[in-house]
């Protein structure tokens, strides 16, 4: 048996190999070869003309000329981009409910969070964070001189009946606000009941863009970002990872096609080229046409806005040599579901796939506070957003000087932006008491609510699939996305 290489010995050999690999490099071309450039660029006749002309003119430095031409071409591209409508953030301002509302001097919040059913595991960190916020507010003296009251409530298992029962009970108890729901669909089931009773609905986890424009009497708010912002975060990631050409696949349907659009727009703004854009029937048994289109276009990256069926597409792509190892493959984690990787028969099928989830990372310090309450907590998703939702309502009530939901709602956006920055309930409350305008920056980020009552800056988690076809938590990164 030959000698085994020790680690040191191996490192020496690997250094030799690396040096051998780079040692054979050809001479550095003094300039970029002109004919090559002309063939390679896909910039249309104008850009080619510029490049060819630059070479023909024979300027002193060929490199300089080429680069100047390239720069001019880039400037042209800039001009084209600038001709698009300017990208501005959503409008800013306070909510303006028109209903009258009642006050009784104490802030009462009713929970509408998943305690049972499929989403119960998602509910645990939210429920713990809501209790933590209430406890901390009350330890600091409460709101309007009285303790905040929190009544837990179950949003059930996607059955609108269960959610409606919980909401009815909260409204009957005189709740000023309902905290929830987690799922956008559940929120849409109850939003009219809550807001037409002139109460606040505040969700820590809804991302449907539909809720931005919903006719809510200016009483619906959320700390989770709209999917529009998530699309921007995903586009940022795709471009930052060096991808220039992108294929987009979406199942037919308003939601998924919307998501496709929210991904496509920021990609375009950042100069990435969308080379394939297709929608498909999610009930189809084969996705050959979509697979063929992607393979033929051979893009740097693929984005799938779909659900579980995305694994069938990815398996079919892998059979054609298009793998997440060599291409960027991106999904929306809340769509495919965290257990999506397990639907791959082939071990390693989704390794390298990345996806976004619109939740901020919980700081170690915040995790400790949550774990003190709930030692079994495994996941912290939407915990920061839930905590912030409660704190924001408490601060808005302090600023309004009443628990009247219409008045509280009028003060919510303002406590998240513009004014003296503060990060805890008691610090912010003291500033309000001193007559200051405040800017609460919470556990989930700077918030900075738009007039529609949702964050314009939000944390987004970037998750990666690793070995075992599971999300590898050690690879998770958190980024901030903003309008």
């Amino acid at each position, binding site marked *: 048996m030959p000698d085994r290489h020790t680690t040191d010995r191996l490192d020496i050999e690997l250094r*030799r190999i*690396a040096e051998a*690999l*780079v040692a054979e490099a*050809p001479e550095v071309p003094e300039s970029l070869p002109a004919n*090559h450039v002309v063939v390679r660029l896909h910039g249309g006749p104008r850009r080619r003309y510029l490049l060819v002309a630059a070479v023909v003119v024979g300027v002193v430095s060929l490199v300089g000329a080429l680069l100047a031409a390239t*720069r001019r071409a880039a400037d042209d591209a800039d001009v084209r981009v600038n001709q698009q409508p300017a990208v501005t953030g959503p409008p800013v301002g306070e909510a303006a409910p028109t209903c009258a509302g009642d006050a009784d001097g104490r802030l009462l919040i009713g929970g509408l969070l998943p305690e049972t059913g499929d989403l119960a595991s998602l509910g645990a960190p939210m429920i713990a964070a809501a209790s933590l916020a209430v406890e901390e507010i009350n330890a600091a003296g409460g709101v309007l001189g009285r303790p905040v009251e929190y009544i837990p409530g179950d949003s059930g298992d996607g059955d609108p009946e269960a959610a409606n029962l919980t909401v009815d009970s909260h409204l009957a108890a005189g709740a000023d606000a309902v905290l929830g729901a987690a799922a956008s669909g559940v929120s849409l089931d109850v939003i009219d009941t809550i807001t037409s009773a002139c109460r606040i609905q505040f969700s820590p986890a809804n991302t449907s863009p539909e809720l931005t424009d919903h006719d809510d009497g200016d009483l619906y708010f959320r700390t989770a970002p709209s999917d529009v912002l998530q699309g921007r975060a995903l586009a940022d990631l795709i471009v930052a990872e*060096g991808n220039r050409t992108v294929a987009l696949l979406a199942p037919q349907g308003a939601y998924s096609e919307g998501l496709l659009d929210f991904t496509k727009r920021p990609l375009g703004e950042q100069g990435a080229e969308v080379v394939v854009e297709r929608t498909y029937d999610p009930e189809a048994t084969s996705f050959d046409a979509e697979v063929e289109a992607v393979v033929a276009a051979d893009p740097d990256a693929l984005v799938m806005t779909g659900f579980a069926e995305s694994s069938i597409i990815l398996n079919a792509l892998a059979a054609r040599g298009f793998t997440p190892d060599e291409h960027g493959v991106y999904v929306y984690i809340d769509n495919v579901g965290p257990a999506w990787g397990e639907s791959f028969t082939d071990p390693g099928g989704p390794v390298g796939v990345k996806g976004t989830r619109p939740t901020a990372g919980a700081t170690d310090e915040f995790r400790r506070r949550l774990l003190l309450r709930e030692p079994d907590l495994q996941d912290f998703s939407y915990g920061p957003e839930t905590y912030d939702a409660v704190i924001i309502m408490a601060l808005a009530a302090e600023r309004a000087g009443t628990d009247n939901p219409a008045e509280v709602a009028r003060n919510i956006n303002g406590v998240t932006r513009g004014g003296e920055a503060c990060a805890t309930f008691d610090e912010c409350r003291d500033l309000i008491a001193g007559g200051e305008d405040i800017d609460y920056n919470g556990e989930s980020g700077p918030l900075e609510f738009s007039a529609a009552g949702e964050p314009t800056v939000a944390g987004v988690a970037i998750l*990666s699939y690793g070995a075992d076809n599971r999300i*590898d938590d050690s690879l998770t990164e958190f980024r901030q996305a903003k309008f």
Partner: protein
Amino acid sequence: MRTDAAELAADDADVYRRLAPELLRFANALVGRSDAADVLSSAVVKALASATWPAVANRRAYLYRAVFNEARRWKRRAAQRLAREARASVADRWELPALRPDVREAVGALSMRQRAVIVLTYWADLDPTAIAERLGISEGSVRRHLARARARLREALDA
């Protein structure tokens, strides 16, 4: 605010002069001698023409990533073009006279990412954090590629 185009172009030419040698060596490690210069030119031209270039803070990292991505594209295109021909042998891409034939084969059999990580670790002396930044992939993925590449090469060296 826009700087004068000529000034920017001069600046770009300077960046190219400064970084081309090391980028070319990197490209060579990825795709081999015959294609390295083409990959470099193509990557640089695309990078400079991109709308994001003027705002790029770390140009060296950006260009390494551009070369890396161009090499991947190049390999895919080459694979399509050469489908009917025999797979280009390692000897065509790198002569690597210093290495035993079986080790040479093992080097050629590494994935491009693995080769990139090996070169940046053992030639450029970068740690996984810096490599991750340079290639635009996660640190965990750098560590994985490095571990797998080391395991493969150890096998070949021990054989």
